[in-house]
């Protein structure tokens, strides 16, 4: 195995005249937790959407597990073992919690015209779905309609779905936002366990304590550019990072 799971190489994404992402390069090594931080509008979610195939890059290369994946459709990238959550939680509202997870479990069958007719309600499927729900602490609510869950549980449901899809890489987009303190502690432990199982994690996080505490390395974006990369300690002392965060609050700064 090579020492890079995902390589983002000089990737740019322009929307008309707006350079949402400009020549960004970074790598993720297997079994690490990489934090992606930056002020609002820095391009973090755009970066996620490029990796997961929602957008095609304007320029640059994305290599996942030794294969160029830019330009591939989201479902093709998901099938290569990339699971993701969304900044705004969107469960399949009319399905139950268990059914939401079962949708993710169908991943090996959806694009197979023979297997698509098989049943999704088999005992083995349900048992394995319940195991994942148990892991995120939602097993008790398996038969509840997803629309009825409070935010904290919805975030766990999203992670459960993403965990099934993301056998190799998990992309977590602000999974901690809006959570209570004890929920944050539980989720941090869950993510550490996930990494211990050999899954690589890329997380976007606004909560600095969480981002610095969980990440092995941190990449900082500002206005679509990478301004720093390093260990949490290095990032916390980095002049440009401090300026990017404080400059936003204080003086008006020319972009």
């Amino acid at each position, binding site marked *: 195995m090579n020492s890079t799971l995902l390589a983002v190489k000089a990737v740019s994404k322009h929307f008309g005249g707006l350079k949402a992402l400009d020549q960004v390069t970074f790598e993720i090594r297997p079994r690490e937790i990489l934090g992606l931080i930056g002020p609002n509008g820095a391009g973090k979610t755009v970066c996620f959407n490029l990796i*997961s*195939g*929602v957008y095609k890059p304007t320029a640059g290369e994305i290599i996942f597990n030794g294969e160029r994946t830019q330009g591939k*459709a*989201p*479902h093709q990238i*998901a*099938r290569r073992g990339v*699971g*993701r959550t*969304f900044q705004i939680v*969107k469960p*399949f*509202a*009319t*399905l139950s919690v268990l*059914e939401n997870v*079962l*949708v*993710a479990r*169908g*991943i090996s*069958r*959806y*694009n197979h015209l023979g*297997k*698509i*007719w*098989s*049943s*999704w*309600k088999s005992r083995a499927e349900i048992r394995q779905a319940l195991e994942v729900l148990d892991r995120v602490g939602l097993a008790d609510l398996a038969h509840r309609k997803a629309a009825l869950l409070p935010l904290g549980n919805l975030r766990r449901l999203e992670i459960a*779905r*993403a965990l099934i*899809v993301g056998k190799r890489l998990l992309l977590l987009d602000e999974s901690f936002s809006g959570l209570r303190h004890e929920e944050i502690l539980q989720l941090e432990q869950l993510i550490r366990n996930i990494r211990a199982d050999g899954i690589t994690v890329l997380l976007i996080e606004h909560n600095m304590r969480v981002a610095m505490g969980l990440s092995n390395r941190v990449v900082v974006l500002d206005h679509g550019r990478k301004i720093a990369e390093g260990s949490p300690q290095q990032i916390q002392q980095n002049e440009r990072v401090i300026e990017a965060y404080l400059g936003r609050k204080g003086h008006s700064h020319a972009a």
Partner: protein
Amino acid sequence: MQLFIEQLLNGVAMGSIYALITLGLALVYGILRILHIAHAAIYTVGAYVGLFLFKLSGSLIIGVAGSMVFCALLGVGIERFVYYPLLKYPPYVPLIGSIAVMLAIEELCRLVAGPQILTFQAVLPFPQFQIGGITVSSTLTAVYCITALVLLLLWYITSKTELGLAMRAVSQDIPIADAMGINSHLIVSLTFAIGSAIAAVAGSLVGIYYNQVYPTMGTVPAYKTLALIVVGGLGSVPGAVVASLLLGVAETLLIGYANIPLPRDALAFIAMIAVLMWRSEGLLGSR
């Protein structure tokens, strides 16, 4: 009493046919939120292709099966080349596209097969029943059996199979479904294929039922099925079926049996207006 029961049986058959035509529309609305007017044109093509292949082969099974395949491909073609590229625009844009496709296909049928009414003389290979003094013709038996079979198959697909689960996921949120590894576009295409194949069955069945096939046979169903999916609840397949059966029975009993002086086709729209005024989510709709 005997006349009443006979009319009731006819009404259920009428409703079954409405259901077969409306199913495709309900499926498509459910997954893409598009009013697929051109679905009624697929139904017309289904009747023509069924008739043509039946005359060519002498076998009704080949005629209907061939028509199902042809219409499935036609439906997927319309989805790929008309609706999918228009999805990024507001909903009235695909709606206008749909009306254009509807008219184009009707005219194409007129050009290819001529404006005259063609006869579809086929005996449906179903038994005839005699219960008391009431005869259930083989045509009626065929309509009941085929509709029941189609509904059963569709129920199985949507509620039991992986495809059905994927359809539910795609109908709720395409980006999330994609992130779960679902090829949403493939699922949408399969939905069109299934709905269009059912329309082919409906077209052939109606052609035989009335013994006529003509280019504008889809015009009234186009508007009536639209009313039916509103009455049933937009996007609700069971709602569409219930509304269709109710309408078939109501049309036959109120106008055929009770002789209420109303044009037969007005009933669907009166029901639609009533639903929009008092229960805008429809009979079985949510929200």
